[in-house]
């Protein structure tokens, strides 16, 4: 069948089972937007207020559903507006295919209107990227892009299509994704003219070695990382932890990889890790990290991290092994598969003594009860109590993010949507929008800071227009809290440029966007607002007033020993 490029693109999306696209139109991508009309009902396009919002929405969609997110943007500023979202997806290994169009072939290289070297810009922040200059290669490249985005360690892939390509005709045959491999359409990836590219099995000897290390261990500790979430290996991981009877620390990206209510959970680990987690790291005799990359926020001081332990690293990406900490043993493989093999070979262990020691330290931070104002834990606990158990929680970046991760319990992959690696303020609202669109039957909330919310609050228009029942909690401490905390502890209380002593009034802002706004500063009003919001079934903003000097506790300074807790 002969189709024009923009139609081939639509068909390729259908091949992949894509029915949701986020984006924003502009000159070079207009052929594609023209075809969208023809595919109405099969491909639903969500128009955001800003390309950055679209990028975070697709990312949130991908993280919460496990499917590949898709974004459309125009050339020049359209493409560059995506970059923060692309980098955010890259750092957190989220599979998103970003598609932009560039100026037509005859205008390339002439600094034409809205021309930018988009693939050059995206180079360091994508898993792979392509420029399509020939309509005959359009379908094969799109197929390859999707395969790469979701394979191995997932990640963003960027495709730049020249405008003329979207209007040119080519022969096209629809082939559903499941048949791409057998029909030889991914040959370029599978065979690559190299003998050894086929997926090797996980090395059984490596597995056996780990099994005997586990059996010898008296003080094991597990780390649940983002790889467990991306690999949807939570059931296996829980089973594994239960079998070893091992205390388990959870990284920011690992939230939902381990059942948050499992009594083995020691809480978060690292800079804002619980005492139980961080002390266990220091005392354990074997540390098994699954799908975690020992970032500087986890291994605050790599040389002394888990110094008494044999460190075992299980990861799908070989380049993570020995990158940040030196390991004693590693297994390269998909978390689900590796854990399954381990479970088969292990019998029930018992580490009561060691657990007694670890859990003699707190797994969660305590706050004074019964104060006049809301405290962060009270706020999180109340939200958690009144919202359904499986509510998806999207966050922005700062103190509120840490509080949310410390105090909510996440039970399944995709329940916590947060920018862990890149720490992108303004991520949360877009991500919540994508999560709600991907999960229409679930409740979705956003936990935002007042600073972060200001960054992209224009996406309220998207919430309103598409009638998304997202409840937005602004943890409003009238400051860039995390910055203030550092200034408080490290910069001698020199609160430079961190006060948010200015508008807008978030209740009025919500109103301007056609959404209901509430302001609450005590338990009773908070509960009433949540109940009303739930009952309304509409999106809304609940502006929750917190004390300006609340801190995230505990805290270990960057570069310090993991048990070197600051006095706060």
């Amino acid at each position, binding site marked *: 069948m002969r189709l024009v490029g923009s139609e081939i693109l639509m068909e390729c999306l259908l091949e992949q089972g894509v029915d949701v696209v986020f984006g924003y139109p502009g000159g070079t991508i207009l052929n594609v937007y023209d075809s969208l009309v023809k595919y109405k009902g099969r491909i639903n396009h969500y128009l955001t207020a800003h390309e950055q919002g679209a990028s975070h929405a697709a990312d949130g969609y991908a993280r919460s559903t496990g499917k590949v997110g898709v974004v459309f943007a125009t050339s020049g500023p359209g493409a560059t507006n995506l970059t923060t979202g692309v980098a955010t997806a890259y750092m957190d290994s989220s599979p998103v295919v970003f598609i932009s169009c560039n100026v037509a072939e005859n205008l390339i290289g002439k600094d034409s209107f809205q021309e930018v070297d988009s693939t050059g810009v995206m180079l360091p922040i994508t898993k792979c990227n392509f*420029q399509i200059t020939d309509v005959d290669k359009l379908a094969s490249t799109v197929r390859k892009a999707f395969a790469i985005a979701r394979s191995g360690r997932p990640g963003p892939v960027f495709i730049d299509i020249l405008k003329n390509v979207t209007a040119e005709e080519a022969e096209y045959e629809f082939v559903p994704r499941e048949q791409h491999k057998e029909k030889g359409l991914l040959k370029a990836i599978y065979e690559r003219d190299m003998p050894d590219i086929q997926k090797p099995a996980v090395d059984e000897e490596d597995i056996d070695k780990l099994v005997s290390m586990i059996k010898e261990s008296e003080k094991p500790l597990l780390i649940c990382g983002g790889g467990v979430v991306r690999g949807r290996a939570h059931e296996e991981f829980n089973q594994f932890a239960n079998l070893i009877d091992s205390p388990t620390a959870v990284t920011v990206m690992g939230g939902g990889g381990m059942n948050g209510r499992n009594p083995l959970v020691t809480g978060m680990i690292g800079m804002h890790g619980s005492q139980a987690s961080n002390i266990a790291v220091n005392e354990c005799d074997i540390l098994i990290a699954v799908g975690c990359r020992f970032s500087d926020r986890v291994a605050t001081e790599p040389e002394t991290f888990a110094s008494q332990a044999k460190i075992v690293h299980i990861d799908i990406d070989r380049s993570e092994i020995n990158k940040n900490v030196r390991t004693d043993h590693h297994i390269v493989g998909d978390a689900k598969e590796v854990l399954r093999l381990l479970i088969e070979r292990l019998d029930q262990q018992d580490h009561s003594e060691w657990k007694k020691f670890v859990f003699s330290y707190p797994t969660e931070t305590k706050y004074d009860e019964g104060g006049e104002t809301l405290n962060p834990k009270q706020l999180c606990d109340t939200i958690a109590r009144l919202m359904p158990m499986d509510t998806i929680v999207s966050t922005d970046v700062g103190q509120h993010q840490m509080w949310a991760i410390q105090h909510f319990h996440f039970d399944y992959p995709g329940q916590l949507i947060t920018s862990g690696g890149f720490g992108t303020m303004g991520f949360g609202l877009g991500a919540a929008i994508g999560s709600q669109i991907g999960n229409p039957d679930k409740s979705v909330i956003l936990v935002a800071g007042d600073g972060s919310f200001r960054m992209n609050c224009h996406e309220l228009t998207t919430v309103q227009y598409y009638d998304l029942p997202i409840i937005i909690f602004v943890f409003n401490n009238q400051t860039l809290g995390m910055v203030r905390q550092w200034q408080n502890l490290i910069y001698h209380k020199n609160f430079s440029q961190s006060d948010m002593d200015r508008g807008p009034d978030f209740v009025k802002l919500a109103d301007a966007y056609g959404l209901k706004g509430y302001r609450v500063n005590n338990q009773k009003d908070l509960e009433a607002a949540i109940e009303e919001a739930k009952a309304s079934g509409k999106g809304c903003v609940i502006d929750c007033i917190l004390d300006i000097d609340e801190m995230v506790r505990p805290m270990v300074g960057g570069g310090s020993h993991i048990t070197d807790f600051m006095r706060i």
Partner: protein
Amino acid sequence: MEKMTNAKRQTLALLVDNEPGVLSQIARLFSRKGYNIEAFAAGATENPGVTRITIDVLADDPHTELLCNQLRKLYPVYSVKWLNSENSIYRELMLIKVLAEGGEQRNDVMQLANIFRAQIIDVSSTTLTLVVTGDDDKLTGMANILSEFKILEIARTGVVAIERGIATINDESKERGEFNYGKNVL
């Protein structure tokens, strides 16, 4: 990047996709991670879709290993070999143009050329141009000696290298399998 105390010249051989943008992606990775490329040579291989790149970089051993790992992760990279000077052969080609006006000067240049097994490939009334191949030491040595004449121009290809004996960049290893694992589809 942290300071490296034991940095030395290391040679890496890569097989990569022969596609636009790949060379810049490789080169970018070095600068992004804070390394300066000392030499870079790229050319065709026995396989039409595949380019071989040889890169010399100043780094200590642990950082070189990290760098290899980051390179292996790149999608268009098939294979990376960190070459060991004991069992590899290194060659580079240099063109060097010197000013040699009088008969005496010409004779001296030609004699030196002989010693280095260089050939004279261009002659004009005032210049001689030589071509020489060898490893870095030989080429640098010859350039140093010729500098007693006036050197007008030097062009070097950058080093290429290959292992001795049956070993090749395509050899299977467990590590190589592990790196490819993550690149596989579904």
